[in-house]
């Protein structure tokens, strides 16, 4: 049995406390009215800073002949519009920061759940010694889902403007969004979210329950039950995952669509989940709790990290290159925005999620060296946080992005919560399943 070390527990509480303070600070410092924004903008333009890049088609002011008065009036109107725009972005910023961290950690544990489901269905002989670790990580899923679902309801109640299609005012003036309102409307959207979250959590609940019952059983009926529900879950998952990615991420840019977006999101959180399994396994192993886990198990996890990292890159590039190549105006704006305004995070994510793992994890010996693996894991996890940041932020805060207090505090809060929930769950059951049909093979697995 694992005992939650008091040091780690304190650490998780500290993270949560700092995170909460930072999140609160982010909300308090967000501008409350438009005058505040106008003041800061005026101050910035005096200093000669162009902090807020705007993606507007250049208008040739000289083509029209305007009187001085008319020009002044126009300039004032533009300034006001700009201030209003920035005001909404800055108001969104703490919400978005929370949203990115919230969805990242929830999907990360969902990615682990999918990996676990695949291992069950594939009857993998190497992984049963890691099942309890995976179940521990997926214990975050119910907690994360609840917070996430509450957040979606708050969006629907207009506490924020993350999803602009939730604003009836916007829909009324936007034909493209209005045409999508059969799909993008609050009741349908929230019901879909409820069904998906309930489905995933139900699988997680019953799979865990059967796995524990299998320990005490004298036949393999619970194992077979788990096999069946895992297969059903994977079918449900791939449908729900695709729709989830449209609902929760793609609809932040409701004028844009991409067909492989679901897969792309999936690859991102799937590799994060596998990486998190590796991190937790390596941690527990270093504390002496996983005596049956050897370097071959770790090596296999590292191979999955490596392979799925490349898979993510493949999808990233396929999505980018197809749109870049055809350069259709209604699709390319998505990437124009990201390249011009989010240049460093956009290309930095590729370096962190592809270049770094591909060069580090290609070596067989490196895949067994703990510190290299931990370093690669941290880079991959941060890289996929940045990936979600890139997917979400441009649609909500646009040019007003910054990785500051709100963003870091949200990550710290969810990291603390994640550590607390996961390691509490790990104490609830022995770390080695007793009667899994493949447990002996798994104990002696070597590669």
């Amino acid at each position, binding site marked *: 049995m694992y005992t939650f070390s008091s040091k780690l527990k304190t650490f998780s509480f500290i993270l949560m406390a700092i995170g909460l303070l930072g999140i609160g600070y982010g909300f308090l410092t967000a501008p409350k009215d438009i005058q505040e924004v106008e003041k800061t903008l005026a101050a910035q333009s005096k200093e000669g800073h162009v902090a807020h890049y705007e993606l507007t088609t250049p208008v040739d002011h000289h083509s029209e002949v305007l009187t001085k008065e008319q020009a002044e009036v126009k300039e004032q109107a533009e300034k006001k519009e700009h201030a209003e725009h920035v005001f909404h972005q800055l108001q969104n910023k703490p919400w978005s920061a929370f949203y990115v961290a919230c969805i990242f950690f929830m999907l990360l544990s969902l990615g682990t759940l999918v990996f676990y489901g695949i291992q069950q269905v594939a009857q993998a002989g190497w992984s049963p010694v890691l099942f309890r670790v995976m179940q521990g990580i997926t214990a975050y899923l119910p907690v994360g889902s609840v917070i996430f679902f509450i957040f979606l309801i708050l969006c629907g109640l207009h506490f924020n403007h993350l999803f602009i299609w939730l604003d009836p005012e916007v829909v009324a003036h936007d034909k493209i969004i209005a045409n999508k309102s059969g799909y993008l409307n609050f009741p349908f959207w929230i019901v879909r979210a409820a069904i998906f979250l309930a489905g995933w959590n139900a699988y997680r609940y019953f799979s865990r329950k059967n796995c524990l019952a299998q320990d005490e059983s004298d036949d393999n009926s619970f194992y077979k039950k788990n096999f069946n529900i895992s297969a059903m879950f994977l079918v449900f998952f791939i449908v729900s995952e695709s729709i989830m990615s449209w609902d929760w991420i793609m609809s932040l840019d409701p004028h844009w669509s991409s067909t492989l977006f679901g897969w792309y999101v999936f690859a991102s959180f799937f590799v994060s989940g596998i990486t998190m399994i590796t991190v937790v396994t390596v941690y527990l192993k270093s504390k002496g709790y996983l005596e049956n886990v050897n370097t071959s198990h770790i090596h296999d996890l590292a191979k999955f990290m490596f392979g799925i990292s490349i898979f993510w890159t493949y999808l990233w590039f396929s999505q*980018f*290159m197809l749109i*870049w190549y055809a*350069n259709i105006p209604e699709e390319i704006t998505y990437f124009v925005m990201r390249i011009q305004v989010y240049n460093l995070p956009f290309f930095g994510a590729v370096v962190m999620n592809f270049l770094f793992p591909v060069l580090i994890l290609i070596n067989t010996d490196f895949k067994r060296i703990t510190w290299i693996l931990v370093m690669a894991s941290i880079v991959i996890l941060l890289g996929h946080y940045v990936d979600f940041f890139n997917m979400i932020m441009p649609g909500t805060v646009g040019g007003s992005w910054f990785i500051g207090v709100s963003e870091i505090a949200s990550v710290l809060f969810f990291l603390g919560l994640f550590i607390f929930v996961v390691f509490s769950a790990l104490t609830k059951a022995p770390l080695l399943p007793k009667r899994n049909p493949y447990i002996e093979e798994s104990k002696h697995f070597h590669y």
Partner: protein
Amino acid sequence: MSNKVIYAIYNDDDILMDAVKKTRAAHHHIEEVFTPFPVHGLDKAMGLAPTRLAICAFIYGLCGLSFGTFLMDFVMIQDWPQDIGGKPSFSYIDNMPAFVPIMFEETVFFAAHLMVITFYMRSRLWPFKEAENPDVRTTDDHFLMEVAVNNNEEELVSFFEGTGAVEVKVIEKH
């Protein structure tokens, strides 16, 4: 000095593995082992050095990547930078996404083919090469260990008979 060798023939890979370990423990030099299929762990038991083929492949891949990059840069950017469908051919990075499929394929092509050719050369395999099979049964269901004899013929024969060999032959090698 005679160049006699012992052929110890086995009919089971587990027995062969044991024999290899015993032979190594007794410090007899194993010249070669012939098996009809890969025996897992045999190279480790024999103490063979790990292969460096993967390192070669990585370097070949980098060569392929460089070649692909050079080719596209020279052809599309340096030599005749045309406007083809509005693609930006001002610098390599401007048009890079369009070149990535070629860069990727060249990498894989070079890595794969040069590695295979390296393998053929290092293991001396080519068409019309004369087979070096000491006993035809080793391609079907027998395992053969070849050990050099250094004036200790009788000792060696009895040693190998003790390791479970189905047949121990002393052969004059030319």
